[in-house]
């Protein structure tokens, strides 16, 4: 587990974008750090997907208040470590 966490912490930026593109079903390269979430399908199902992704890959539990504060892709990248 500890090893897995170390490995996931070293995830590169392109890998993180890959995960988010898959989650949002967005075209490769279409997401930018400044992309506003309200231009995407950022609904309750997407939030549940993000919770699962961050929990599974980074061992963190996102709270409801954190989720509501997210505005851009950069905010999501920031919790993916």
């Amino acid at each position, binding site marked *: 587990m500890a090893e897995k966490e170390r490995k996931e912490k070293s995830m590169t930026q392109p890998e993180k974008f890959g995960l988010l593109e898959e*989650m949002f*079903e967005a075209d490769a390269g279409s997401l930018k750090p400044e992309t506003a979430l309200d231009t995407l399908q950022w609904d*309750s*199902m*997407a939030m*549940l*997907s993000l919770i699962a992704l961050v929990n599974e890959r980074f061992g963190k539990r996102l709270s*409801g208040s954190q989720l509501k504060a997210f505005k851009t892709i950069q905010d999501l990248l920031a919790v993916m470590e």
Partner: protein
Amino acid sequence: MFNPMNLSGKRILVTGASSGIGLSCAVIAAKLGATLMLIGRNRDRLDESLSKLDGGGHIAIPFDLSNLEAVESLFEIACEGGKKLHGLVHAAGIRPALPIQSVSVAQMQAVMLTNYWAFLELTKNFSKKKYSAGGSIVAISSVSALAGWPGGSLYCGSKGALDASMRALSLELVPKKIRVNSVAPSNIRTPMYDVGTDTASTDNRAVLIAKQPLGLGEPEDVAQAVAFLLSDSSRFITGTQLVVDGGYLAQ
């Protein structure tokens, strides 16, 4: 005084007894005179549950139900010295909320294992002649077996499977004088509910409660229905799902 829900003299095994509905089932059953065998993963939390029970003779058996192959060991401990069980309550369960695209095979297996396969393995052992001579089995199902919600594919499916098997087993176990039923709660004030609503659906907490004409249920509301199904008052009831939902499904 006549108490139609009297459980004195009955030995009842409860899974998920560390918190929530399982714990409440144990507390109510003990108040009604039963002797409890509490199953949960954590020894300290089970000991805390034990301290909340009226009466004596209760035991706690720390056990992780994901160890399906070893479920019989629970019954060996619970029935030490040739004592038999009279009731089984499967309250252990997990409730993931996951869009289908986020569902992994590991999660599919984990949900079915705890919510469903464990029930089969528990029932298999409970119904062995050496562990019971008749009795009542109650599975904690959910209104999710009857009504869906987005993100609930795993949970709803596991509870639907539970109810389908409950009906089959109720027929199969008639010759053994074992009744099998389930109780289907809606949203109840438990740790599971707290975790489930502290997410994307935080705003939905009020919406969820609004869908229940009688408001948010308490664990005792479910436990009292379970106690009824464990008691001899329900001797003519088998193979049914008792909905305890504050009116959720009536709409």
